[in-house]
């Protein structure tokens, strides 16, 4: 019968093959799903995966939107992956995203209508600090009281959503907005607007920061002592303790970094694509980033690819809605399937399938 046997060493080929395998299986199963819905599976898969790049009418615009969608995902996922590798599960990145946007946005509104090139960087720092502070709550509670950070960070997401509603209907509401629950527009004023670096690819400043962060994260995790300590804590907590790694420090640092990055992403979102603080500017990037982190195998380079892939499914999914009438929910099923298959084929990295004869 078929059995799983541990490999002596994790297979390097499988490491790179499995994500590709998972995507391929997802495409096939996705096709089956669409066929079951009465759609032409090939047309659907083509629209989702290929049209955003190559379609003659939609292509140019869709390509420019890929980075807009992928940027925040990559930024947040990189931060999350650092924590995940240490076994610290920050599930509340969405809340840190919102709080960072509020903190940075509030600074921008307080300085309104100041002009100057220093306004946006100051807002960015405020955003990072806001997100970091929000992440420090689960960190502190875990260090001091051993409270589960998954649940605390998650509860804080709902608190953050409500706080956002309180802020945009109250202190941060725009006086020129006829009483509607939104802040002043950040994109209307140059000093608070996120600059676009290269329009055809949709590369705004936030994307550049994301790329910089990815490189920095890679260097830190692979070459720096802290990165080593983080990885050790995740792989063998006891060995890490014997090696003198301070577990509280790891918790604080990893949650702090992921919170700060998520907060920055939030700030970039409201000064760029969203344009202002409203009750529903958060669209779930904090949660999707978790999937991106896993799809990218918690590795900065992988995360870039995974982020682009996720963005592709979003954009392609919208095109599919428009052209084929495929409902938005189908795309979420698709994304969930992708993660499932990746986690499933992941087993082949550490185990191999063998046929063993039963010995009676």
């Amino acid at each position, binding site marked *: 019968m078929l059995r799983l046997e541990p490999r002596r060493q994790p297979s390097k080929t499988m490491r790179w093959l499995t994500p590709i395998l998972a995507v391929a299986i997802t495409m096939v199963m996705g096709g089956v799903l669409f066929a079951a819905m009465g759609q032409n599976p090939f047309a659907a898969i083509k629209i989702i995966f290929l049209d955003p790049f190559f379609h003659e*009418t939609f292509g140019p615009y869709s390509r420019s939107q890929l980075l807009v969608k992928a940027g925040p995902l990559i930024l947040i996922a990189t931060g999350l992956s650092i924590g995940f590798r240490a076994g610290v599960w920050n599930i509340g990145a969405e809340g840190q995203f919102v709080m960072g946007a509020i903190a940075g946005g509030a600074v921008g509104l307080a300085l309104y209508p100041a002009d100057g090139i220093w306004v946006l960087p100051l807002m960015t720092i405020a955003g990072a600090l806001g997100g970091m502070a929000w992440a420090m709550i689960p960190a502190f509670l875990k260090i001091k009281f051993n409270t589960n950070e998954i649940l605390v960070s998650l509860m804080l997401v709902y608190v953050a959503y409500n706080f956002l509603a309180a802020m945009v*209907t109250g202190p941060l509401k725009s006086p020129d907005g006829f009483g509607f629950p939104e802040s002043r527009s950040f994109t209307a004023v140059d000093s608070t607007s996120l600059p676009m670096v290269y329009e055809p690819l949709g590369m705004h400043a936030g994307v550049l920061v994301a790329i910089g962060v990815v490189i920095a994260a890679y260097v830190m995790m692979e070459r720096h002592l802290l990165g080593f300590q983080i990885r050790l804590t995740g792989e063998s907590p006891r060995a890490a303790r014997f090696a003198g790694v301070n577990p509280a420090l790891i918790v604080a640092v990893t949650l702090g970094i992921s919170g700060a990055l998520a907060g920055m992403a939030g700030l970039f979102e409201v000064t760029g*694509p969203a344009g202002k603080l*409203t009750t529903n500017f958060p669209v779930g990037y904090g949660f999707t980033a978790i999937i991106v982190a896993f799809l990218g195998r918690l590795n900065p380079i992988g995360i870039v690819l995974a982020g682009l892939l996720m963005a592709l499914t979003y954009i392609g999914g919208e095109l599919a809605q428009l052209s084929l009438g495929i*409902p938005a929910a189908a795309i979420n099923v698709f994304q969930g399937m992708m993660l499932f298959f990746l986690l499933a084929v992941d087993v082949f990295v550490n185990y191999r399938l063998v046929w063993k004869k039963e010995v009676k």
Partner: protein
Amino acid sequence: MKFTKTLAAATALALGLGGAAIAQTKAGFIYVGPPTDFGWSYEHDQGRLAVEEAFGDMVETSFVASVPEGADAERVMTQMALGGADIIFSTSFGYMDPTLNVAAKFPNVKFEHATGYKRADNVSTYSARFYEGRHVIGLIAGRMTETNTVGYIASFPIPEVVRGINAAYLAAKSVNPDVQFKVVWVYTWFDPGKEADAANALIEQGADVIMQHTDSPAAMTIAEEKGIFAFGQASDMMQFGPNARLSSIIDNWAPYYISRVQAVMDGTWESMDTWDGIKPGMVGIGEFSDKIPADVQAEAQAAVDAIVAGTLHPFTGPINKQDGSVWLAAGETADDGTLAGMNFYVEGIEGELPN
């Protein structure tokens, strides 16, 4: 840039074929919720279907549903425009800035923004004078309540919602001086769970008539179960509350949508602001239930007729603001500007407007 070329091609195509009878006009619709919500988005979709039926092969419609307000909306509308849409209906207030941004990039595509207040050469705004409908159901509520408590499920403290509360309250009070309104803010347009909870809370507080400014039939369902009265919102909601439903405010976008698509086809489309009420048919009053006594029905019908005839304006003085200051003198009616930016309760409503 690439898409200017594509845009030019699409425009040439649209203009070139505009005159021919076999030309297809493309109308795009973007909804903030699912068309199956039996509320706001459902009625817009009904409007879309009416357009399809009215024009047959000459018009092709498409829609994207459940689009979050913000960057996603901008992208969807851009893709619609790239796909050759001639007119796009963005059916939520929160789509305002995205609509204007896309309109700026596609000057030859017409945009219709619901409940907004910013226009451009190719952007029109439209909304319905729901407050006229609120007046009518307010009258009925004032008469039908036995506990003198009307429960109101409100979404966001924006002028449109506040107008509705004020209009309903004034009307109810005019026939029942002891009536009290209790307002719960749920901070969402569509969340059946929260709406059901809010309805229950209001009923626990003694309300025996429920009004809502949210999009799902949850409150109506709860009202039916608890044996109290409610009004349908945006759509009739009869099937959810056969006993509970007294009447309803029905959004009827079909006549407006058909006329605007016709204008695009005729080339007569111009940017304008439309704020229509019961008379042009944009606001419909649902059939009065048998549970309403004949004299109350007559009273409500008289109000409808008076509004249509122009002799009754739901906001006619003397009316004071909640803080006691005078708003309208006797006989004075509110002007559209104040109504559009209404951010205060009228005198008599208890509780603070969240702000």
